[in-house]
Structure formats: C-alpha cells, structure tokens
C-alpha cells in the first residue's frame, strides 16, 4: 500500500518535471518557430506581419538580395579572422602566463576579466571613442580588432583550464630526447592543449557571429549580418532575412550533429 503510494508520488513528480522541461523548451524555441514560419510567408507588403499563405519563394529570392548575402560574408570573414587571431594570441598568452616568470602577472590576469565582466556597450563606446580619436576609419579592420579584443580572454580561460591538469614532465622528456623548444611546443604541448584551444576557438567564433552591441558602435559602413538584421527590424523583418536565419540554423545543427557524432563514435571505439 505504502509502496504504491510512493510509486504514484514518484510518477507524479516525474510527470511534473517532464512537463516543466517541455514548457521551458517551448519558451526557448518559440521565437525560432516564428522565424521559420515567417520564412514561408507569402506576404510581400511591409511590415510582413499578416500571413498570406505558404511559399518557398523567399528561399530563392534570398540569393538575389546581394546586400544581405554581403553582410553574411562580412560576418563570416570577421568571425574567421578574429577567431584565428584570438586563438593564436590567446593560446600563446595562456602558455606564457602559465610557464614564465615576469612582473605584473597579477595585473594582466585582472585585466583579462575586464572584457568578460564589463557590459558590452561600454566596450563598444570605448573602442568607438578611441578609434575616432586616433582616426582609424571604421570598417572591417576595426570590427576585427574589436572582436579579437573581446574573444581573447575566453580563449585564454579555456586553454588555462586545460593547462591546470597538465603534466610538465612530458615536455621535459621531449627536450631530454633532443627536441628543441619549438618542436616540443608543436609536437607535444599543442596536442595536449588541443581540446582547450578548440573549445576557446568555438566560443570566440560563436561570440563573433552573434555580436550586435560592440559591432554596432565600431562598424562604419561595413554591415555584419546581425547589423543588417537590426536595420531590417526597423521596417519589419523581411521573410528573406527569416529564410537566411533558418538556413544558418539548419547549417549549424547539421555541422554540430556531424562533429558530435564523430566524437561519440571515436569514444565508442
């Protein structure tokens, strides 16, 4: 008797928690479903709110919207370049901070938290005032510089997490075997740090492609995809923007599923 009661209670708890999770996922995915639905909306009149029937037109019209595609290209260029730079600078920095002695390490360590903690808008206006004072024309270069500056700390933290469980003796062994420092770095240190570097790079890339606030202040006439969206929001988001967002989402899901399942498989072996 008591047992069935407990069982029932357990079942009820389980049902409740499943329901709760479903609701949270609904909340998270609701706007996405609006985006996907609107990418099939046949309406052609601004602000594109009324549902006028189903169409696939926007997916082909999208490829005529050169400005939109250009902004997406810009976003990809900025994300790739800034991720590369941030990953190199960040990895070197993390290794150097871990291994060598020098003055001001504590200060540098503290400074690293600034871009992480301070609201993006402050970083944005600070870079804007500086760039306009020293008269660097706003555009691709300033966007890349800004993105590098806010992603480096994230790379460093990721690599550092990996370094803390790192056995220095492996490197010493390599040096003892006659490899020089540079060979050791590439052949021994780097492979060990790879997961941390990869995680940091992925984070930097993600931050870069979705950045609105900092880019908004330092972009000049160069439009990134988020800024293009910001502009199109002013007059009602056109279904082709929704279509591109849907494609990007599908692309990332496929990409991640592929890489994830790959990792899982390897683990299985």
């Amino acid at each position, binding site marked *: 008797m008591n047992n069935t009661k407990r069982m029932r209670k357990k079942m009820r708890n389980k049902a409740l928690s499943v329901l709760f999770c479903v609701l949270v996922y609904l909340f*998270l995915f609701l706007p996405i479903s*609006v985006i996907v639905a609107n990418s099939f909306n046949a309406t052609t009149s601004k602000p594109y709110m009324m549902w006028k029937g189903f169409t696939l037109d926007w997916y082909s019209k999208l490829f005529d919207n050169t400005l939109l595609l250009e902004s997406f290209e810009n976003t990809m260029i900025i994300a790739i370049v800034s991720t590369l730079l941030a990953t190199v600078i960040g990895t*070197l920095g993390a290794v150097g901070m871990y291994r*060598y*002695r020098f003055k001001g390490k504590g200060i*540098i360590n503290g400074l690293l938290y600034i871009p992480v903690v301070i609201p*993006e808008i402050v970083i944005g206006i600070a870079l804007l*005032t500086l760039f306009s004072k020293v008269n660097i024309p706003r555009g691709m270069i300033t966007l890349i510089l800004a993105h590098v500056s806010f992603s480096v700390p994230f790379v460093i933290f990721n690599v550092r997490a990996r370094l803390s469980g790192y056995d220095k003796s492996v490197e010493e062994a390599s040096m003892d075997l006659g490899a020089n420092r540079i060979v050791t770095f590439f052949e021994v240190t780097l492979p060990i740090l790879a997961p941390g570097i990869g995680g940091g790079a992925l984070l930097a890339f993600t931050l870069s492609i979705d950045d609105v606030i900092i880019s908004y202040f330092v972009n000049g006439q160069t439009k990134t995809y988020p800024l293009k969206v910001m502009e199109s*929001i002013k007059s009602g988001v056109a279904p082709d923007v929704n279509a591109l967002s849907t494609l990007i989402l599908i692309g990332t899901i496929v990409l991640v599923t592929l890489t*994830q399942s790959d990792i899982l498989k390897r683990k299985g072996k």
Partner: protein
Amino acid sequence: MKKKRSKHEFRANTLPAMVTVGPMVLLLIFLVVAPLIFVAVMSFCQTDQYYNVVYKFTAENYSKLISPDYLKIYGQSILIALLTTIVCIIIGYPFAYIIARCKSKKKKLLYMLVIVPFWTNSLIRIYGWRTFLGSNGWLNSVLQNLHIIKEPVDFLYKTGTTVLGMVYCLIPFMILPLYTAIEKLDGSLLEASSDLGAKPYKTFLEVIIPLTSGGIFSGSIMVFIPCLGYFFVSNILGGGNTDMIGNLIERQFKSANNWPLGAALSIILIVVTLILVKIYQKLGGDMEDLGV
C-alpha cells in the same frame, strides 16, 4: 659569470615570455586599457555648441547624472536586471537540476537543446517575440480562437515585456553554470541526507542549495550585468518607454551627440559592475566561473 647567467635567464625565460605573452599584453593595453582610460578622460570633458568634444575639465557631467531623473533610470535598470535574474533562477534552477540529474543517454541532447536556439541571431529572435505577442500575433489569435478573450490583449511595450526579452536572451547564462554545479554534486551525499531522515525539501535547502551556490552566484552575475547594457531588448519589446542605462548611453553616442555625458554614464556603469564583482568575490565566487 653573472652576465652569462642573465643571458641564460634571458633566453630561457624573458625572451619566450615576451614572445608568448607580448601580443596579448599589447592587445590588452591598446584595445582594453587605453580605450577605457580615454572614456574616463572624456567623461570630464565639455562640449561646444555643436556638441563637439572640447578637452577642458568639468565635473558637470557627473553632477547632471545625480539628478532625480537619472537616479530613477538607474533604479529602473537595476530593478529590471534584478527581476530578470530572479526569473532566470526560478526557471533555470529546477530546469538545470532536472537535466543535470537525468540519467538517460538523452542528457547530452537535452543540454544541446538549450544552446541550439542561440545559434540564431539574437535580434531576430527578439523580433520573433514581437510577432508572437502583437495584437494580431499568434498568442492573441490562439486566445481569441479558444474564446478565452474577446478583444486582443496588449502584451507588447510594457516593462514586463522587456523583462521577458531579457530573460529569454540571458537564461542560458544561468542554466549552464547551474548545470555544471549540479552535475558535480555527489549523489551519495544526497542519499546520505535522506537516509538520515531529512525531508526532501530539507535536503534541498540545507545540502543542495549550499553546494550549488557557486553556480547560482556566477549565473546571477552573468545575467545581471549584461542586462544593464542590452539596450536593443528594451527598444524592440519595450517600445522605448522604459529606458535603461544602456539606452541612455546609446542615445548619447548615437543621436544626442553628447559623448562626454555618455562617457560619464559608462563610468557609472563600470563602477556598478565592479561593485557587483567585488560582492561576488566576497561571497566566495570564483572569477574563473565567469569565463564560460
């Protein structure tokens, strides 16, 4: 002899240190420290009649910013950020708990499903809420078709809508650290507690919460602080009615043209941030936890 040693020291330590840490230090100096110092300087500057910045000392910007109108905006911003943080904890904690203690293989999938929505541009998702909540939006249509309401309800352009948008944008920053903290919990500890006769809620309050407080603190910091600066959420969902500090700063730089005033506002925001981080550290929070 001494020279030789210092030469060795140079090759073994100073040179590689410069090569590895150098680029990062340059980056920090030129793209983080210099701009912030410049903002601090500008916050004490004046403007001419055309709102060009004049480099002449004044404290007027700050005296302006302690007027009741501005204080009200700070209060409002902090209130919205606080509400957002609380809602994020209330929704995020049980949610993170359920998925972190989930034993099935689906755990990883459940975790990934939290992140997936955030691969779509945040602005367009916020705009999605506007479409959903509008007078002719999905929600009103559904409610009208179910005859729950007769006339469309105005959901948009309220303070509550801004909070909803903020929660939506920032909740993963609450869920993810909580997930990590809860996952680390030792299951046997919980069993011990219940074996010793503790009621579930007591176990929760006295064992689970203290053990995961680190996650709560770091999640709160990562929700609260960005919330103060997310001007676009209150622009899109709040209708421009409830300004936050972020909106004020944005306006000074983008339309009102008063850069020194905007700089002073930014300094205030930095100070608020630093105070919060200090509190966080005092509570035993680990700075490393804010990194991811």
